[in-house]
């Protein structure tokens, strides 16, 4: 029984080592840009912008991570995002639907597309790569058709608030308080459960740290955001999505099954898991998140355009991979994917501040993607 608590802490160390390294890499990147931009990078204003910029990719990365963990891939999210944004704008402008209806329609359409592609993958045995490569082309075609090749402006302020608004500061603190209560409750739940199943001495220091670190992060985040204009709505949505994704992957049977299917599909099937149904579910989930990302994207721009979301699928996949996900499935975390998205966004933001030419930005980002995975592979072989 004592072995149990040891185990827990040792596993924590190995899985957290990666996370520490990634946070260290992010800190280095931030420190460099802060120095190179003459202290512009790490200001509340720029951090607020940075977080807003990353929210679309971050939301897509959360859904993509779950798809990748199940040993699948979705190349169509950029096109689906364009289509969902187009549908939202079109239903506001041409059909004169109210904002809530337009929002629901856009998300439902994106989710339906995800479900459809999931069914083709899981039940028709067409590889996800092919299904979604077809989707990449077809849904892009659909959005061009729908918008007639034009950019459709969005006038409704309520809609634009999704992409451009900020949470009033007092609301921000209220939410932060709720989040802190939630963290304390989760830690309490795990301690209580450990005690009730007689797993020996509960490590109260570790439990306290598990509560204190996230609480400190929440407070710091809120202080920074509120010293500019409050929490931007896209950031609020992204953080909620990320927490939801982390909860699904770490604390539900559905999440566990995704890892099992990606880890060894045959073993999962023989253990009584309905692989196909779970694959459809995860594609549907990514579809819904793509719809949400589409709302933010079109609301920020204030318009839906036929080329909205082009190459976004690659950003999302890159974020997952930089965050340690394996395209073979079975491995990857939401936390890693979010840090991966933050690293990509920091590079974009920092290099733009430094006026690095855009072709150079692409070359650097591409090199970093390959280098990150190369280092990971190297490290794993040593281990």
């Amino acid at each position, binding site marked *: 029984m004592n072995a149990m608590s040891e185990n827990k802490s040792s596993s924590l160390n190995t899985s957290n080592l990666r996370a520490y390294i990634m946070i260290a890499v992010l800190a280095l990147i931030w420190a460099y840009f802060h120095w190179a931009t003459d202290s512009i990078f790490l200001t509340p204003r720029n951090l607020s912008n940075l977080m807003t910029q990353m929210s679309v990719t971050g939301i897509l990365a959360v859904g993509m991570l779950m798809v990748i963990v199940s040993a699948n891939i979705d190349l169509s999210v950029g096109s689906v995002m364009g289509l969902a944004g187009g549908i939202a704008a079109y239903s506001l402008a041409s059909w004169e639907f109210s904002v809530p209806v337009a929002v629901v329609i856009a998300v439902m359409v994106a989710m339906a597309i995800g479900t459809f592609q999931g069914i083709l993958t899981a039940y028709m045995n067409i590889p996800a790569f092919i299904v979604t490569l077809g989707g990449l082309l077809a849904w892009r075609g659909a959005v061009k058709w729908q918008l007639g090749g034009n950019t459709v402006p969005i006038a409704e302020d309520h809609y634009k608030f999704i992409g451009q608004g900020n949470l009033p500061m007092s609301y921000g603190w209220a939410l932060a308080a709720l989040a802190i209560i939630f963290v304390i409750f989760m830690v309490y739940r795990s301690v209580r459960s450990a005690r009730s199943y007689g797993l020996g001495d509960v490590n109260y220091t570790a439990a306290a740290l598990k509560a204190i670190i996230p609480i400190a992060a929440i407070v710091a985040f809120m202080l920074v955001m509120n010293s500019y204009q409050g929490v931007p709505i896209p950031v609020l949505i992204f953080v909620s999505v990320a927490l939801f994704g982390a909860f699904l992957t770490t604390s539900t049977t559905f999440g566990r099954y995704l890892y099992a299917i990606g880890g060894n599909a045959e073993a999962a099937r023989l*253990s009584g898991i309905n692989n196909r149904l779970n694959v459809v579910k995860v594609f549907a989930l990514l579809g819904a998140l793509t719809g949400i990302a589409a709302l933010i994207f079109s609301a920020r721009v204030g318009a839906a355009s036929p080329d909205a979301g082009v190459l976004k699928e690659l950003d999302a996949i890159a974020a997952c991979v930089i965050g340690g996900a394996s395209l073979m499935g079975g491995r990857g975390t939401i936390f890693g994917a979010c840090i991966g998205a933050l690293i990509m966004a920091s590079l974009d933001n920092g290099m733009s501040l430094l006026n690095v030419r855009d072709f150079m930005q692409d070359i650097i980002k591409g090199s970093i993607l390959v280098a990150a995975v190369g280092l990971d592979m190297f490290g794993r072989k040593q281990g």
Partner: protein
Amino acid sequence: MPLLEMKNIVKEFPGVRALDGVSFTLEAGEFHALVGENGAGKSTLMKVLSGVYPAGQYSGEILIDGKTMEFAGIRDSEKAGVAIIFQELSLVKELTVGENIFLGREPSTLGVINHSELYHRAADLLRGLKLDIDPRVPVGSLGIGRQQLVEIAKALSQDAKILVLDEPTAALTDTEVETLYGILEDLRSRGVGMIYISHKLEEVFRMSDRITVLRDGKTVGTHRAAELTKDAVIAKMVGREVGDIFPASHHEFGETAAAFRNITAYSPDVPGKKLVDDVSFHVRKGEVLGIAGLMGAGRTELLMTIFGSWKGKWSGTIEAGGKQIKLSSPSDAIRHGIGFVTEDRKRFGLMLDHTIIDNMTLAALKRVSGQFLTDRSREAAAASVPMSSLRVKAGSLMTVAGTLSGGNQQKVVLGKWLLTEPKVLFLDEPTRGIDVGAKQEIYAEINKLAQDGLAIVLVSSELPEVLGLSDRVLVLHEGKVAGEFTRTEATPEKLMAAATGHQ
């Protein structure tokens, strides 16, 4: 001077000595059969001969025409005139017959293949073997049997002096078998030495000049076929004491836990081919039912079918807990209290990159963790029960499964199924590739589970294991029940006779 001489071949794998000083000779124009139980070392010996295990990975000497050979790979052995036809075909289905025959040795000028010469030579070769196969059709369009004949033609196109055939008739129809024998007779007259591996003793006696029996990685003996009888060969194959590694056991049988009637399973690849053919049996609470049979007898296919995980068509009825049940997926089977410790733990049993706890709780996750939300502590409490009762040797529940020894991996798979609290447990090759100590522990656990009232169906290729553990033994041969024996009736000779289709 013999055509081939293998002297004192020793080949070790971690924890196992697969070949322990085997010697073997083959004369030109000789048909030499190599027989033995599954795992006796036949295939390993042939892999040494063909360079699959290159020189340096084994000890001993290989001489061809009196010259010492050290093969670094298959290419080298092919050059020396050794051709092997493995059980699994090594043809590229999308390429034509002719292209396959000359794969890697295409007649060409400056890298451009001369197709007319290629097909001309292929046609000559096929005609020489009296095979009516068009060299221009894709291999995939031929039946499995004709593909096998193409494989043989390919081997012969390389002017093989030594031809190894590993169960070559497994996929052939009767007419194709006759065609094959015609070819082999012809080769014999041309002076080709042939090593023939087969479980079918009829075939072995039909053509062989000499027969060598292997057992536990050692040569039991080499004899002229005329001096032997089938019974004598069987006795040599099994002639081993059932050691005392099997715990003394006394099982009390209860009522029937599950009954399976008229189970027939069709091959998903070859339409109409029955891999399991009208098999019926039952197993009682507290009973260990052994299922014996040789490779390809349909044992795993039978278990897959009655677990709801067979990918092809099947028919039959299944009763569990006194009522008829419908199985369309493994989750149905699990719900009705059937567990299945599958063979080949790396492919079917474990997520090797995941932790012991994740592996162990997978099949019973909703019960040992939560219907929707998981609870790590609850899982840990559940998994630590089999972890300690099976004495899994690992740092902790958080140890990654892939880093464990084979025996401990097997215990994790067993633990996974015990957590589902089964009424009937299928065990498919539960001790393959694990060391003797872990085997003993698993044997003890099987006995304990039976004493606790679990109904166990045990498939094993190791006869001593089947005999040492089973209360009753069912023998399969080519998908059909070839015999059923109680513990007192069962002898190695009887089981082997039934398994080789020789009653």
